[in-house]
């Protein structure tokens, strides 16, 4: 396939000008597991110019039920490295930066600095809250996603919104995923919604989930958007 045909099917969802502009954007994905694997896949295929993939963890057998990058050849390998290797095969036109570090208070600012937007694909509330604070301080928009069992949530947070503080104010309260685990289908759906949010923020489209949370209930097959008031 000729190189020029790569983005043909992005038309007319994106205009040609919008599609070209994607090359100039830098997106940082924190966590390369259930959500992050799919997020990176979709960002790379659509043509985001630079993707930073952050994860200290290695694939293990418990990841195989849902994490797109976990397979029998990647067990024991670092998730950030594997995600970048895969996307290099899919789209060699983009820049991929693997970061093999645990996102924390010490490296967090350095990792997100210079990105146009950050994607929360983390698996714990403490680090999600930290990411929310650092993105707000650095004035970088953040697309949050979280999953547990049949359920998931997505929202987009701009500096000063403090949505993450609302979602995770009680650090002693474990998420429902601790009881329910995570099946194969919920991460793919929530990741897709996160990537759609990333695209709208970068392209300055309307309909962004700001001060609104999408709640996904795949058991009852219901999608609710809940407005947040201050």
């Amino acid at each position: 396939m000729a190189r020029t045909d790569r983005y043909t099917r992005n038309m007319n969802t994106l205009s040609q000008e919008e599609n070209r502009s994607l090359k100039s954007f830098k997106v940082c994905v924190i966590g390369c597991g259930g959500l992050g694997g799919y997020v990176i896949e979709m960002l790379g295929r659509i043509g985001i110019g630079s993707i930073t993939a952050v994860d200290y963890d290695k694939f293990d057998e418990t990841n195989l039920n849902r994490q797109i990058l976990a397979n029998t050849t990647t067990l024991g390998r670092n998730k950030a490295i594997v995600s970048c290797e895969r996307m290099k095969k899919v789209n060699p036109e983009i820049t991929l930066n693997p970061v093999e570090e645990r996102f924390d208070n010490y490296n967090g600012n350095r990792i997100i600095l210079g990105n146009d937007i950050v994607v929360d694909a983390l698996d714990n509330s403490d680090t999600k809250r930290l990411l929310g604070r650092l993105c707000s301080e650095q004035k970088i928009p953040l697309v949050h996603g979280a999953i547990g069992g049949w359920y998931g949530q997505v929202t987009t947070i701009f500096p000063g919104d403090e949505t993450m503080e609302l979602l995770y104010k009680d650090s002693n309260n474990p998420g429902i995923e601790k009881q329910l685990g995570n099946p194969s289908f919920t991460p793919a759906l929530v990741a897709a919604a996160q990537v759609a949010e990333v695209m709208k923020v970068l392209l300055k489209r309307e309909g962004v989930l700001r001060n609104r949370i999408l709640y996904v209930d795949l058991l009852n097959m219901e999608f609710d958007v809940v407005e947040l008031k201050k």
Partner: protein
Amino acid sequence: MIDLKVEVRLFATFREGREKKYILELPEESNILTVLDMLKIKEEDASILLLNGRDGDAKRMLKDADVLAVFPPVGGG
């Protein structure tokens, strides 16, 4: 005597074994805790309590036609 009617919307795991939505008829001086008790939801399990879209504590008093949404924490990734 019924003094106020409140709409309660439950999300995620709170729907299991319960309805998704209730219209509750409550006496005057009811607060969010009254509703959680009626629905057998522990206060500590409800990480977000949106009363007419605003988050806050469970001691907030209810008035007629209020809409309460109750969410458990979801943190997986």
